[in-house]
């Protein structure tokens, strides 16, 4: 028989205001196995934990139930407390009488009754708990960073500087990511390339960093400390060791009609190309869809002009299988498609562009060589209208429900840069709210208004209509004047919502990392563990976790790196002991359980079994505790009930059911 202690927390008034904690103590004390019950103001506090420890020692408790907040909040706290007091940490159960009780019920009598029942269920469960001992698994001292933008580069540099090997996998031909496409950065207006390219070079030159560009993660197996990852290095059709990056091939390539991904499709590139001048590695890629040699078999000009003989049409995709202890996800973002926003005429007029496209237009290396001009006719614009919140803060399926966070600032930046360089150009910004929290951010926005004369109008644009004379008619609200405005513009710039890069969804599935309805990766805790995925060993860096600007991205990338370093610094990891376990005497060896195991944790062996005197060789399921994550799929698939889950056993759950239905 267990000797159980029950500890009821007031949580200040969070619980005690709606639950009669004394009554819970009184009722719990009557439950079988309970030898001690008490309440306290804050059980999670040092004093509260001391009470628990004291009771464990004095009453020789073999199990404890803490009636408090959600186990997701403090289960770990109380387990550690029990462990310090000499009790196996898995002999602790939490009755959630805050989130699931006091916070949602108003009637004290009802809430108290429910709290008693929840306590009773936890007591019934702990009566059947058994001490569990975590196992150990090894840590491969190497990290994988998925995504080679500023987030991935920063994480990789930080991990490498701590002395660990890092591989970066980047799906495009060069690292650099979105930041490489930007012209200037807010709020300091320094040139994006000037601050990014040194970091790219540093990463490429770092002896601990290995970069796989034009590569994708194909398969991930294993678990924290011991991931095995297949990386597909797509065929570049260029021998990177021979290529000198002279660029002759690109110049001579006769197929020049492909839209440049780097310039957001605003101009074209050759079939053999490096995305931009500062690309790392400075090795071109042949776009086999566009290449004449690949399409017709004739051409081969690039090969002829290559003095180094680096062009290799026969090159094949390669698969590298590597082991990692930690994985940092830094897959970044893209802007949403605007197909569903006909009212902004994005698909009808070349002069309606997204802000990211404007970055390329403003950039000296961009399609207009940095001259601000209309893309339809190359004319200098007289009036530019900026539209904020295009697709952000939308509750319908056309856009995204969240605020994209960066648009207010970059729009102010664009407006300011244009007014600075071309004082003759009139700039109007339509906004719903201007959101500029952040150091020097609001000051920046105010400067755009006060010093640069940018006209901010509160109200949304309802319609952009291309006119026969080539101009754009913008119809919008001026909410402060309660007017409907119709104005002519030469260009319209849409502050388009950002969304996680679509590659993150299949990746999340491979990683078994949770993802939210907007495809942002979920953090383990929104406040306390913001850079970790709930899946152990997976860390989140940059916009894959939520919209953020460059400084925040870099900060988070560093934080994710530190978390990864913390993991890599360990020699061994303790594993979750709540794993599945097969009862050898009951196992049929039928393989049903292995069929449903998502981790391949179940294997079979033929073993001599002594079943109450009958000795025979039997095929028995064996669970690998390092692989098993404790989902329990096997336990239900098993017809004989041989497979059970430690910590959530059939009898424990049934005891809870019985206690609730009593």
């Amino acid at each position, binding site marked *: 028989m267990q000797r159980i202690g029950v500890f009821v927390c007031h949580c200040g008034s969070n619980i005690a205001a709606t639950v009669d904690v004394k009554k819970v103590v009184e009722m719990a004390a009557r439950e079988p196995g309970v030898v001690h019950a008490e309440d306290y103001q804050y059980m999670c506090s040092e004093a509260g934990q001391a009470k628990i420890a004291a009771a464990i020692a004095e009453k020789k408790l073999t199990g404890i139930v803490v009636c408090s907040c959600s186990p997701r909040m403090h289960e770990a706290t109380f387990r550690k407390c029990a462990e310090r007091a000499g009790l196996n940490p898995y002999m602790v159960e939490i009755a959630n009488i805050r989130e699931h009780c006091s916070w949602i019920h108003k009637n004290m009598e009802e809430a108290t009754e429910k709290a008693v029942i929840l306590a009773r269920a936890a007591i019934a469960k702990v009566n059947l708990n058994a001490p569990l001992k975590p196992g150990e698994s090894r840590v491969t001292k190497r990290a994988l960073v998925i995504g080679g933008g500023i987030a991935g580069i920063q994480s990789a540099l930080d991990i490498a500087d701590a002395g660990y090997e890092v591989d970066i996998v980047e799906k495009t031909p060069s690292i650099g990511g979105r930041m490489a496409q930007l012209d200037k950065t807010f709020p300091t207006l320094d040139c994006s390339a000037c601050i990014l390219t040194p970091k790219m070079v540093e990463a490429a030159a770092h002896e601990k960093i290995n970069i796989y560009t034009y590569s994708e993660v194909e398969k991930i197996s294993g678990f924290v400390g011991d991931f095995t990852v297949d990386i597909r290095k797509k065929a570049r059709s260029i021998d990177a060791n021979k290529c000198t990056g002279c660029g002759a091939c690109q110049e001579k390539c006769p197929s020049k009609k492909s839209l440049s991904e780097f310039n957001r499709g605003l101009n074209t590139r050759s079939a053999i190309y490096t995305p931009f001048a500062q690309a790392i590695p400075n090795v071109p890629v042949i776009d086999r869809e566009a290449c004449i040699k690949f399409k017709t078999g004739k051409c081969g000009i690039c090969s002829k002009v290559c003095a180094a003989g680096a062009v290799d049409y026969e090159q094949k995709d390669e698969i590298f299988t590597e082991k990692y202890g930690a994985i940092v996800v830094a897959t970044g973002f893209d802007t949403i498609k605007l197909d569903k926003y006909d009212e902004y005429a994005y698909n009808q007029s070349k002069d309606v562009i997204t802000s990211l496209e404007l970055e390329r237009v403003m950039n000296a290396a961009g399609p207009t060589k940095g001259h601000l001009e209309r893309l339809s006719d190359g004319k200098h614009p007289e009036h530019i209208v900026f539209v904020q919140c295009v697709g952000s803060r939308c509750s319908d399926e056309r856009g995204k429900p969240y605020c994209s966070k960066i648009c207010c600032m970059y729009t102010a930046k664009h407006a300011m840069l244009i007014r600075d360089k071309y004082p003759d150009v009139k700039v109007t910004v339509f906004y719903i709210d201007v959101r500029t929290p952040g150091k020097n951010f609001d000051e920046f926005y105010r400067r755009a208004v006060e010093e640069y004369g940018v006209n901010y109008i509160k109200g949304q644009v309802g319609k952009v209509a291309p006119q026969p004379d080539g101009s754009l008619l913008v119809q919008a609200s001026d909410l402060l004047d309660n007017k409907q405005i119709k104005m002519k513009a030469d260009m319209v710039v849409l502050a388009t919502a950002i969304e996680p890069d679509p590659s993150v969804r299949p990746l999340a599935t491979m990683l078994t990392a949770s993802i939210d309805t907007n495809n942002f990766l979920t953090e383990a805790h929104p406040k306390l563990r913001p850079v970790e995925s709930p899946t152990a060993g997976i860390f989140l860096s940059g916009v894959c976790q939520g919209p953020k600007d460059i400084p925040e991205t870099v900060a988070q990338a560093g934080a994710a790196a530190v978390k990864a370093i913390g993991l890599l610094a360990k020699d061994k990891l303790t594993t979750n002991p709540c794993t599945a376990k097969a*009862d050898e*005497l009951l196992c049929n060896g*039928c393989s049903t359980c292995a069929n449903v195991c998502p981790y391949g944790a179940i294997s079979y062996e033929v073993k001599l079994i002594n079943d109450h005197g009958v000795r025979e060789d039997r095929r028995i399921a064996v669970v690998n505790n390092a692989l098993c994550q404790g989902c329990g799929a096997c336990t239900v698939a098993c*017809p*004989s009930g041989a497979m059970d889950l430690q910590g959530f056993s059939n*009898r424990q759950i049934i005891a809870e059911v019985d206690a609730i239905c009593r």
Partner: protein
Amino acid sequence: MQELINRAKELLADGTVVRVLGWRKGDMDYNPEVAYFNSAEELDNFVYDGFCGANLSKYMIEASKLEGKTLVFLKPCDTYSFNQLLCEHRVDRDKAYIIGVGCRGKLDIEKVKAQGISGITAVSGTELDGPDSIKVSTIYGDFDVAYTDAMLERCHVCKGKEHKIYDELIGESKDTHDMDRMAAVAAIEAMSPTEKFAYFQAELSKCIRCNACRNVCPACSCRKCVFDSTKFDSQQKANVDSFEEKMFHIIRAFHVAGRCTDCGECSRVCPQGIPLHLFNRKFIKDIDELYGKYQAGETADQRAPLVNFTFGDAEPSIVNERGSK
């Protein structure tokens, strides 16, 4: 029948097999028993006629543990069960020598009795190559009963005359399928919830928890049944109320869902005449309709529907649309 005995003797004699698993005469003509035969002499008691309905596949679980090969006679429908057991690693193919025996449908003495015939002393004409009607001798005289009128329900919904796994075949089989397999299930589905409940309440109240259904079922082959183990706090108890046997039968059917070949043994052996196959068939019907046609035991390397899924599977709420009005 003699052909089977002769072949069995040959195989015993040449050492291919060390024992034979088949049927021997019982106390009554309609009660043959499952038996092992270890020698040519023992085979004199061997019998194979219309009453040899017993599915021998399940016995092969134990036979697989014995030294040497066992000769086993399997009817076409029994081979599905054998395949399913093979798929679940419960039988050893190398330990079995399978003779696929012919079948023209198996007989149910209850069907004969249901025709008002009692005091039965002997039944003849039930052999594979026998006449279209069987002769039933009673203390009141002899009666002729058409073979099909005395057939088990399961044979009216026969899965086909093809053996799915065998080493050799002896005897012609007949596809006796002449009824809609799912008709009875559909009829219950069409009832109101109250009628359904009343129907199953009435049927299951007859259950005496003798466990015959479980013990004969080739899919219910766990070393220890959950209803006998302490793992679920559900150890065998006497039935005291209406729920216990419902839970037992639902769970029993659920545990074999996707694995049940619909061999009909459960209903055949139930001493209370409960149509237990109606539970299994309900799952089969749902699986076929929701997840695509599936026949357990069709081959030995299938993935059962309950250990499989597709991303677009129906949500459980579909029961609200498909179920009772």
